[in-house]
């Protein structure tokens, strides 16, 4: 009895699911993302959840959200402001209302707007009744009641029924945006294999939500977002943390040596440890250590013994690892240190994103302690950069930083699955020849030989004391110390010879260059794209290699009249650029635990070059 609905074709949509942290919003959002990815849209997601695992139900601080931007065009951000908000209770409405577009559609669970929940959300009157939502397209759905009705006959407690309503909401959104139910039905089937009753309940709720849209007239229009024309190939959806884990497994495969991870759980990096602990049949060893220091120390030991060693953490954990990173610098052992940045200082904002550990990575150690720094720009780029970090670590016998951040780690996007054979090789040649062996002899890359325990005749000692050039014995000779300090620095600088040059995107003859790094890539790219479409001249470069900087950095920076550096910190890249290149830069800083909106960057650019603000 399908009615005739108007179908409107849209280019892109931003939708946000919001509810209690117990409402399953992260799950709902990621199911919508997977289905949308399979459908062929380009997409980008932004999960946003509180630090409390199960904050008291109905409270403002317990609201968990998942934002998703999908499009028939290529996109690079999770969207500035939602076109659609699904709010499971008054608190979710209140917290998110300020973010959504004027005129946006708000789908609410009207059953949750009872006096108790309204009070918890500090509403003096019911916003569904007091006309305060005029200007929005409010769709009231009796989500709880409808879910209960759909599940009638199943022996479920009220609590279980309540926990199923997110699938009802998801089904309704599938209907509204014309997405298939099958991927989620299959997922439920797999997930609840052993709990038949939940399997049935969740599938029923999902389907009921879909047909609720079909059979009632709450929406008069359905929306269709056509598949995007992405580059040809096979795709899957991937989050930054998953991509880092896969990058490491791939590097281990290409290097032909086992991967060893020493790590201690910390938000938002834990998923890398969890993910890698699945890959035992790839020979991956994950060691959940007693603390971050043991995490890196075990990795250093494993590296000494010939494994591809990595350690993963977030800001506070990185602080604990500092001394050991210095040891890896001194002993010149390959090691990758992943810092999935979050709001700091101290415990800061554990679940929120920030990019404020750059200077910690650059300078946070005693002595002259140079470490290469790479920064991933998007969730899928985390794969490439994790792989690249391993390659550099092994080639130059050095610890290497990979900076990610909460927003990349938890956000996801389509990933063009690479061909295993097309990945670069990572040659590993453990030193074998005892006649020519010297602990600190150097090759053309200034890299010392990797001679691993178990090799007859190459018994040697390394450690944190200064070592004599070539011979590697302990040396307190003043000239040797200066020589070695300079040598370690020169080795890291030498990496510049092979890292890719900066590529200026946009208008080469623009006056203004936007220079950004890490996870700010998406917002800048979108802002620059939008402005250029409107006829403004803007150029953009993005730093994925920060230490050393790409060779042409100075040349690029001095070509433009003005340089704008947007960062989510107090100007850390700006400081590095200014001190390294004596250039003047305009800082644009935001430190609110969330990515830049592209409109914020657009407006900042407009303020510099003139033009009309966007909302």
């Amino acid at each position: 009895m399908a009615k005739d609905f108007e179908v409107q074709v849209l280019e892109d949509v931003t939708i946000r699911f919001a509810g209690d942290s117990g409402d399953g919003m992260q799950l709902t959002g990621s199911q919508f993302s997977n289905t949308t990815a399979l459908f062929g849209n380009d997409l980008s997601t932004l999960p946003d959840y509180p630090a409390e695992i199960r904050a008291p139900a109905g409270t403002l601080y317990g609201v968990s959200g998942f934002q998703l931007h999908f499009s028939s065009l290529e996109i690079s951000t999770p969207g500035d402001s939602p076109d659609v908000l699904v709010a499971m209770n008054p608190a979710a409405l209140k917290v998110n209302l300020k973010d959504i577009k004027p005129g946006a559609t708000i789908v609410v669970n009207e059953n949750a707007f009872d006096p108790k929940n309204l009070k918890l959300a500090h509403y003096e009157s019911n916003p569904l009744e007091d006309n305060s939502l005029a200007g929005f397209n409010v769709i009231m759905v009796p989500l709880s009641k409808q879910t209960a009705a759909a599940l009638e006959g199943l022996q479920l407690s009220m609590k279980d029924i309540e926990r199923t309503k997110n699938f009802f909401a998801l089904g309704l959104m599938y209907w509204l945006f014309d997405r298939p139910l099958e991927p989620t039905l299959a997922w439920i089937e797999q997930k609840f294999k052993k709990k038949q009753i939940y399997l049935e309940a969740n599938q029923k709720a999902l389907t009921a939500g879909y047909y609720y849209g079909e059979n009632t007239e709450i929406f008069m229009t359905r929306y269709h977002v056509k598949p995007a024309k992405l580059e040809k190939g096979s795709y899957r959806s991937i989050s930054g943390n998953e991509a880092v884990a896969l990058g490491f497994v791939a590097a281990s495969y290409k290097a032909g040596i086992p991967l060893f991870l020493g790590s201690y759980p910390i938000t938002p990096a834990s998923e890398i440890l969890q993910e890698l602990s699945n890959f035992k049949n790839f020979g991956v060893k994950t060691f959940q250590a007693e603390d971050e220091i043991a995490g890196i120390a075990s990795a250093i030991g494993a590296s000494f013994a010939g494994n591809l060693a990595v350690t993963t953490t977030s800001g506070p954990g990185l602080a604990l690892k500092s001394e050991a990173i210095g040891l890896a610098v001194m002993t010149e052992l390959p090691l990758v240190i992943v810092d999935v940045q979050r709001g700091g200082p101290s415990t800061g904002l554990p679940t929120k994103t920030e990019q404020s550990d750059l200077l910690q990575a650059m300078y946070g150690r005693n002595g002259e302690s140079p470490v290469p720094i790479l920064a991933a720009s998007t969730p899928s780029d985390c794969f490439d950069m994790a792989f690249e970090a391993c390659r550099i670590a092994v080639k130059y016998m050095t610890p290497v930083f990979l900076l990610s951040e909460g927003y990349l780690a938890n956000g996801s996007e389509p990933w063009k699955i690479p061909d295993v054979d097309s990945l670069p090789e990572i040659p590993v040649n453990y030193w074998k020849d005892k006649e020519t062996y010297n602990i600190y002899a150097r090759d053309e890359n200034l890299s010392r030989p990797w001679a691993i325990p178990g090799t007859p005749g190459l018994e040697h000692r390394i450690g944190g004391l200064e070592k004599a050039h070539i011979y590697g014995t302990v040396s307190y000779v003043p000239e040797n110390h200066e020589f070695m300090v300079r040598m370690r620095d020169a080795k890291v600088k030498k990496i510049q010879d092979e890292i890719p040059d900066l590529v200026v995107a946009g208008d080469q003859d623009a006056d203004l260059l936007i220079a950004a790094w890490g996870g700010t890539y998406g917002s800048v790219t979108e802002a620059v794209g939008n402005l250029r479409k409107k006829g403004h001249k803007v150029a953009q470069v993005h730093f994925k290699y920060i230490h050393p900087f790409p060779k042409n950095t100075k040349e690029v920076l001095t070509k433009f009249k003005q340089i704008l550096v947007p960062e989510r910190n107090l100007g850390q890249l700006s400081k590095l650029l200014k001190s390294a290149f004596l250039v003047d830069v305009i800082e644009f800083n935001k430190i609110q635990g969330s990515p830049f909106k592209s409109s914020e960057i657009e407006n900042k650019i407009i303020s510099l070059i003139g033009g009309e603000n966007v909302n």
Partner: protein
Amino acid sequence: MSTNNVMENVKLTAKDFATNQDVRWCPGCGDYSILAQVQRVSPDLGIPKEKFVWVSGIGCSSRFPYYMNTYGFHSIHGRAPAIATGVKLANPDLSVWVAAGDGDLLSIGGNHFIHACRRNIDMKVILFNNRIYGLTKGQYSPTSEKGKKTKSSPYGSIDFPFLPVNMAVASGATFVARSLDRDPKHLQAMMFRAAAHHGLAFIEVYQNCNIFNDGAYEPLTDKETKADNVVVLEHGKPLIYGKNNEKGIRMDGMNPVVVDLSKGEYSVNDLWIHDEFDENPGRSFVLAHFSDLKDFPTPIGVFRQIQKSTYDGDLFAQLDEVTKLKGKGDLAKLFRSGNTWEVA
């Protein structure tokens, strides 16, 4: 001829385990003896020289790896057990040894030590216990006696000390022994036993620092007094000591009692018979506690040796098991796990 490049079946000697580095401990330091005993037993452990890895932290004692002609890693203060763990997990064929001071292992590195014990990593941990911070020139350590006057405790330390043997036992170490730098034979015997043990083997070595804590163990090492102050633990033998073996330890319920065997009231048959393999750790605690009791001898020897699976063994068993179950990992397949779609 034995050179550094030893051919198979050429018998190595202690010299082969010495490096060309000048040993820089103070003359008379107990560390010399420990080094000598280790170098003496190493050729006879049945382990190829290239498979030894000595890992240390920071301290006088932590210079140890520089003097052993094996693979070695002189790392950072306290972290040796964690680094050694990584070495062992990277290559379980290696024979991994940790040399650590009392500050290194029990203060800054206490966490790593107890967790290495808990996991029963197959490695040997030798504690050089001089009850003082040697390298930093004489501050009290976590094993210094309460009341001890040192550079940082001019009015006497108000810290209670750790009993390292108890820490090891409580943390799950499967081999726990104690020995003395001044008793080379005994120390060698302990090294052999530790080397033969599969799992975490811990030896506390009482080591004299003749510069900052000279004579700390004199009552236990002096010819005149040692018989009355040391009881040597031997499996299946009674706890008997004294110049003429005239004293013994008896258990009165859970309480140890020193008894005089010369008076006729008690005989050897009444004494505590040492059982190294007792699964119950209770008696090890009682034994270790002797050093806190007045008029009790200090036990040396193997307190405890039990069998338990090792972390490294279990790790590799799990890698094999999962590989059998899932098949050897296929990277291309892994990339495509979950839902994929094609863009033509």
